[in-house]
């Protein structure tokens, strides 16, 4: 793989990984808020 290919791969993993965690966290937050409403 060319140099820029490795760079692109690394940046995709970094930004993609952090974005995936952020999306997952927002889903967990939404589920927790829904659960709080159900328990009220």
């Amino acid at each position, binding site marked *: *793989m060319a140099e*820029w290919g*490795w760079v692109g791969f690394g940046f995709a993993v970094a930004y993609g*990984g952090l974005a995936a*965690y*952020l999306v997952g966290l927002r889903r967990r937050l939404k589920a927790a808020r829904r659960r709080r409403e159900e*328990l*009220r």
Partner: protein
Amino acid sequence: MTRQARLPLAAAVLLAAGLAAAMLAPPDRFQGNLQRLMYVHVPAAWLAYLAFAVTLVGSAGWLWRRTPGWDRLAAAAAELGVVFTGLALLLGSIWGKPVWGVWWTWDPRLVTTALLFFVYLGYLALRRAIVDREVRARRSAVLGVVAFVQVPIVHLSVVWWRGLHQPPTVLRPGDPTIDHRMLAALLLNVAAFTALFALLLRQRIELARLEAAAEDALAAAEQPLAGAAVQAPRLEEAPGRG
């Protein structure tokens, strides 16, 4: 603009600026463009240090004050620390393959970082394994304080032992041994990752607060049934008896 919306916007702007700076910074004399991976690998590693330092503060705060807010802070930061350490390991591997020729090697920095990752993964497992909130907070606070010892060991591993990983170029005694344009791009990316960390930490603390409230609500709902659940079954109702 609301105060809530400022942090996501700042993180997005800083990440975009960091990406541009990483692409515009000069290439390395020896590694060429591959060295640009430093602009995500190093911030991920530093943010892991910061996250575990926040876990240390939260753990020490809980041991001192015994208030649940400190425990939630420690737990939230530990999860983020594991994410950033995992990312630093992955990105190091992606950088290592074209430069060293291997995805993984038993280098002291790599081994100590992997150990750091697994110990804090254990911290998260410990939190899930204990139901009693007080016991969970106490045991994880002790681990949160003790486990932090690894952070300086990871950082100094490249100084103490000889290996493939390069020694520190910025967080070292004396001036940084890095081109000032590269340093500026690196610090911009560190600022971007720090803003994202603050955003994630805020949301993870909120999640921990909601989970604690749900635990309280469930405990309150189950309270009247607790006595009934331990009553012995009456003989005539027991199964298998005519």
